[in-house]
């Protein structure tokens, strides 16, 4: 196989991304969840930088830098602050048991690979096989959002989903226009702030961040 070295690195980053998505799915502790998210951001910025190097698109370097700043440094720092203020360093409970979730995750990966197969044949970049992996990590993060019963892991899942989308964009189309990227980054940041405020309110109302308590809002 004569794939150039940069493509191999990007493939490797894709694999590590999927690995981290699986690891987040099976994590039980919030601290390690946030650390995994930071690692995911690091891998993402590395792969963006490599894509930038191999395709000579300088705006991707800025993308990589922005990702590094935001997803590796700023957002995890905010999340650490949040969990320290909310005092929730305990274990994360899941709705089903972990092996079942992993099996569903595997099925989702298979589905995503199949979905991406015709599209990746049309894409003209050097990294077409990574589209399937990117979609798989998006679906896995979505699964993580569904199967957690506390609020902070759901937020981390949402952020991880955005990571996956970003990776899909860089691998298939050499990144999005800079404006779109800045816009998304700003949205994510603002969303974090708002969610943080909401967490406090939920805590005040229910005295716990367990989302099962939200069911009390139902008209019964």
């Amino acid at each position: 196989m004569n794939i150039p070295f940069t493509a191999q690195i990007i493939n490797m980053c894709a694999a590590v991304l999927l690995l981290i998505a699986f690891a987040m799915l099976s994590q039980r502790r919030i601290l390690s969840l946030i650390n995994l998210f930071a690692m995911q951001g690091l891998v993402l910025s590395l792969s963006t930088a490599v894509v930038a190097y191999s395709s000579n698109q300088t705006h991707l370097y800025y993308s990589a830098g922005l990702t590094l700043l935001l997803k590796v440094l700023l957002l995890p720092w905010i999340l650490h602050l949040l969990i320290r203020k909310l005092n929730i360093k305990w274990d994360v409970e899941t709705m089903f048991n972990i092996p079942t979730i992993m099996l569903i995750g595997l099925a989702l990966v298979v589905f995503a690979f199949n979905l991406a197969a015709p599209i990746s044949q049309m894409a003209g970049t050097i990294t077409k096989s990574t589209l399937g992996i990117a979609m798989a990590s998006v679906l896995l993060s979505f699964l993580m959002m569904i199967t957690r019963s506390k609020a902070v892991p759901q937020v981390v899942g949402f952020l991880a989903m955005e990571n996956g989308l970003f990776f899909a964009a860089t691998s298939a189309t050499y990144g999005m226009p800079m404006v779109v990227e800045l816009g998304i980054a700003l949205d994510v940041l603002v969303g974090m702030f708002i969610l943080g405020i909401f967490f406090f309110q939920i805590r005040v109302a229910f005295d716990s961040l367990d989302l099962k308590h939200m069911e009390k809002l139902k008209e019964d």
Partner: protein
Amino acid sequence: MFDQFGLLPIDVALGVVATWLMLGIAGLLLQNNRLATQIIFPAGAVCSLALALAGVGGLSETSVAILPLGLPDLPFHLRMDALSSFFLILLGSASIGISLFSVGYFRNMANDTVALLTLEYHVFMAAMALVFMADDAYLFMVSWESMALSSYFLVTTNHEQPEVRRAGFLYLLIAHVGAIAILMSFGVMQGGHGDYTFNTMRHTHLSSFWASATFLLALFGFGAKAGILPMHAWLPEAHPAAPSPVSAMMSGIMLKTAIYGILRVSFDLLDAQMWWWGVLALALGLITALFGVFFAAVQVDMKRLLAYSSIENIGIILVGIGLTLIFHNFQKDALAALALTATLYHALNHAFMKSLLFLGTGSILHATGERQLGKLGGLIHTMPKLALLMLVGALAIAGLPPLNGFVSEWLLLQAFLLSPGLPHAYLNMLVPIAAAALVLAAALSGYVMVKFYGIIFLGQPREEKLLHVHDAGIWERIGMLCMVVACFVLGLFPTFIILQIDFVTEMLVHHSLGGSALKHGWLLLTPIQAERASYGPLILFFIIVAGGVITSLTVKKYYHGRLRRGPAWDCGYPEQTSRMQDTAEGFGQPIRKIFEWFMGVVKQVPTPFDTHPHFHSETHDRLWNLFYEPIKQLNEIIGIQVGKLQHGRIHIYLLYSFVTLLALLAFIQ
């Protein structure tokens, strides 16, 4: 090889069938226990040997015969080609050991029970032989039904117990539902010609819709006999209820008649197959295998455990069939031959392995009177020879090298691995997932066998009476020794067996492994190419034995071999009763905990306030509630509705006759 006598293999086989029938009738008429066990059963064993040899002869040459029995325009057609011969070899060689075992096992039974048993046993074997040789639908159905009936009577030998009766009824019911499906598939296959011989069916071309209908009906019908999900409910009831030689015969051989049926219909009678049949068979086989092994891990009755293990092995065989269908359909015939070889090898292996274990449980039942694992234990001290024979069987079923179970699993895994890209994307994905499920089932069967062997033979006896039991009798041991020898031969010399199986694969998928398998001599099995895969079981066995022997001799020479006995260490705890070992439930508890959602587990746990705490847990088959109960209720509802036809009033009955007469007259017009 019978040419010197001027006999065709089929003549020998028919002679064996006739002899069996006569032996059975003789047994019934004689009503003498001693004569039956000392003359008739050994004679039956000799006939089995003759049948096996006839089968070997029949592999290379096809012979046909027509008997003047049967319907006026449809005499019995018989045919012994490579496929039939292979299964006749299976029947013949496995039943030698079972018949010899029965000589010792039935020794102390009542005269009339033994008489009936002899008749039913030999009719059973004769019917199975006829199923393998039948070349037209009528003979096939006649022998199929005889097989079902005789095995029903065999299963209900101890009909005084209600659960035996219930098991027999369930067995007969599902067997007949299957038989109807098989009959319907034959009906579709004859394609309107009205001629029910297999030869016509071979040359009839069916549209893909009807061909699929045939395949599905055959899969359902033969699957009901084989114990494929969801028609498996009779297996865990019927196999334990029957006497042990009968369980061995049913589990080892009768289930394979269904496999024979599926192979015959899919590859021989239908001229074109579709790939999705293979996918269906593969998926069904995997689900069956996993189901069987999960449930086997949580059983507390030793014969039920073996019954579920049979379900697992049938699932594995079906996986092989599915794989063969897929490869054959995509014209990858070398791989189809590999998959088919693996399937047939596994069927042959299972006949010996499972029979060995069932026969062993018969000896245990005879000696201890217990079937529950929780009442056995430590039998290796009082029944050492039986323990050694059963160890071989347990290791073989667990699929451990260098015995035979490993060879067929190895071949099947090679078929999975060597498969190149298949056209459909989803099919491509199927290969790693199916391989993963298969190795999972294989690993868990190791767990099941450690549980089975460990709780029965090892540890301390859980009951007082177990200290005074006798070992298996001489005939029982001889019967089991036949099986053990077969296991070793099949495990250590696979190349010779594959050469024989090649006749069958040549006939069904028009390709064989023989050329490539033996390219590097008979010691090494190289299915496709030596660089790609090779396995030398004899070398492996030799090296392990040599390693052990060298080590033990070296240690004894350079260091002393002093040994003394003392109480068990147990970390210094003084009290060790037999209640402190794992029970059968305990050993299966991790599996039950992991797969609780899959099985229906009913638990009764004590509260802290119970004065007499009691723990009880039962594992149910969920499919019973999901699948069988609704059918049963539907049946009852329909029955009630139809029952409304019966009023008891004569006028209405006369009205029925009158209306029917009018309708017929109008129809003729």
